[in-house]
């Protein structure tokens, strides 16, 4: 199959079209506007609709409507724009509507800046809006993975009738890499049972995102919880890399996951054995493998482009069995191999005395 050189943002957009998404509603914001630009050219060819809404709030509710009507639909944004969509995401989860959300995240809080960052981890995995809900969160680390996970995202959204978020960052969105479009024929999932399309021969359909009776709402929440439990059983994805007998386990996702691979290789040259667990699904979180690998290594170092978010989930996963250290950069700063190596040496040499944080 042919390899082509493509920018991350364009690649997500192309993969979405190939996955059968021909509706996109968005609002410009850097560093993801290329997704809109690409789809504004591409979607009309497919008989689909690209629409630049009046705001992100308008866009997320257009997604809601299109999903209720049974179409594969996507929106994308970054930072402040993604925050504005949170209300709609809560409603989409409650109404069990499938859609794909792309967050090419940037530095925060507030307007922050347009540099790459992982500051939106909590927002993505803990339910950034109100209520008791989860969004499936996929964290690619390369342009190829952006493509592969985009195909997967549409399938999982339909399978669970739930929004799926692709959490990238400005670096992934902007960088160019060779990529192959290999659409893995995921099974088609019928929406006949619930979709609002208007049909003479059947009863009217109602899609709701509330239940005023507490007994009913609890029932809905328990039903959602069952779906989440199923996701946790069936959809966990991760990559393990490096030494079989590590002295220290590294944990990082997305862009940081890539950097940590270089750290593993650099350490190997210096005779230091490291392993890496790179979560690919951030929700569901790869707890089991982390616990196993962390126990094997005896200690873990979590690296993020924020001041400590996923590290909490790593700690929950290892259940206090081993010390978990943290190294983070924020505000659009990207951790370097050198500074992480420095931190690794510090932890291995000074052992338990190593600082909990780098700040």
């Amino acid at each position, binding site marked *: 199959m042919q390899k082509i050189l493509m920018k991350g943002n364009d690649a997500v957009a192309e993969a979405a079209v190939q996955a059968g998404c021909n509706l996109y509603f968005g609002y*410009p914001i850097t560093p993801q*506007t290329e997704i*809109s630009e690409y789809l*504004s050219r591409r979607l009309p060819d497919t008989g689909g609709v690209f629409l630049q809404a009046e705001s992100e709030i308008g866009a997320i509710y257009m997604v809601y409507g299109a999903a209720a009507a049974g179409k594969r639909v996507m929106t994308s944004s970054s930072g402040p724009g993604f925050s504005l969509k949170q209300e709609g995401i809560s409603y989409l989860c409650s109404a069990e509507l499938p859609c794909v959300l792309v967050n090419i995240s940037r530095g925060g809080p507030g*307007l922050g800046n347009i540099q790459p960052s992982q500051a939106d981890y909590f927002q993505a995995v803990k339910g950034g809006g109100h209520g008791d809900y989860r969004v499936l969160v996929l964290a690619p680390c390369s342009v190829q993975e952006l493509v592969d996970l985009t195909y997967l995202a549409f399938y999982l959204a339909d399978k669970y009738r739930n929004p799926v978020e692709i959490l990238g960052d400005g670096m992934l969105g902007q960088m160019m890499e060779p990529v192959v479009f290999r659409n893995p024929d995921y099974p088609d999932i019928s929406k006949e049972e619930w979709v609002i399309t208007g049909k003479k021969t059947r009863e009217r359909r109602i899609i709701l995102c509330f239940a005023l009776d507490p007994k009913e709402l609890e029932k809905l929440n328990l039903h959602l919880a069952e779906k989440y439990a199923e996701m946790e059983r069936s959809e966990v994805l991760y990559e393990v890399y490096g030494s079989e007998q590590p002295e220290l386990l590294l944990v990082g996702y997305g862009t940081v996951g890539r950097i940590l691979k270089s750290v593993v290789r650099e350490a190997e040259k210096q005779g230091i054995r490291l392993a890496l667990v790179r979560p690919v699904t951030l929700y569901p979180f790869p707890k089991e493998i982390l616990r196993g690998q962390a126990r094997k290594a005896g200690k873990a170092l979590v690296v993020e482009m924020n001041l400590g978010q996923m590290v909490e989930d790593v700690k929950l996963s290892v259940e206090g069995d081993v010390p978990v250290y943290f190294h983070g950069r924020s505000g659009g700063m990207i951790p370097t191999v050198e500074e992480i190596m420095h931190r690794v040496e510090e932890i291995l040499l000074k052992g338990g005395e190593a600082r909990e944080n780098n700040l």
Partner: protein
Amino acid sequence: MSTIFDNKVENAWCPGCGNFGIQNAMKRAFSELNLEPRNVVLVSGIGQAAKAPHYVNTNVFNGLHGRAVPVAFAIKTVNPALTVIAESGDGCMYGEGGNHLLHNIRRNPDITVMVHNNQVYGLTKGQSSPTSEEGFVTKTQPSGNISRPFNPLSFAISQDASFVARAFSGDIDGLVRLLKEAIRWKGFSLIDILQPCVSFNKVNTYAWYRKRIEYLDEAHDPENRLQAFERSLEWGERILLGIFYRKKRPVYQERVKENLGVEDLLYRGFESENILQGELPRFR
């Protein structure tokens, strides 16, 4: 001409941008109104227009895309002695923040809203905005914008906004005159300023505007709402500038006093320096 509103902040606009005319006109208008930098607050959203407050020596709140007006409203409410101006682009004010415009027209706070209207999203590098014309081709509207442009003047007049004007950033004298009127006006004043974006709007250029602009003539009575509305509908061969509409209405502050019998809202507690002096030691 140098004024006390000059500062040395490095400018990030493209050479030739219509925003420079607006910036110069603001400084002149503030000086001619004898305003003091410490008593002026410029509140902006996000966009090229929203950078303007940085280049003028006043107090600044530069915040969120679309949200300048509610912030300006609350600053004015807390301290009515300040001259509060919300300033942003057409995308910020009429798109993302359109709802806030509507509701502040209803409330009628004594603030001025300046819209740098370049009919495009400048900062995000050229997408259509709410005021882009039909057929306007951009990177996200490759076969041309298919929505009708928003008409801010007709909208504001239809909602009985207290003061509604249009200016052109290429005519600085005219802009200074209109800005002064808008700022002096007690009540909600909207001033829509036509501002060429030399990088991303190759249609509505200086020359395009110059060929069309014409000031409202003496015969126009700005107190006449129907006439104002009719005039505001005109856009094309001729584009009218000036004060389309103005009507004295009690401002928000006065309505609060009337209804709640509250003298001055929160500001009352801070008004006297003596009160502050008396309270400060408690917090030391």
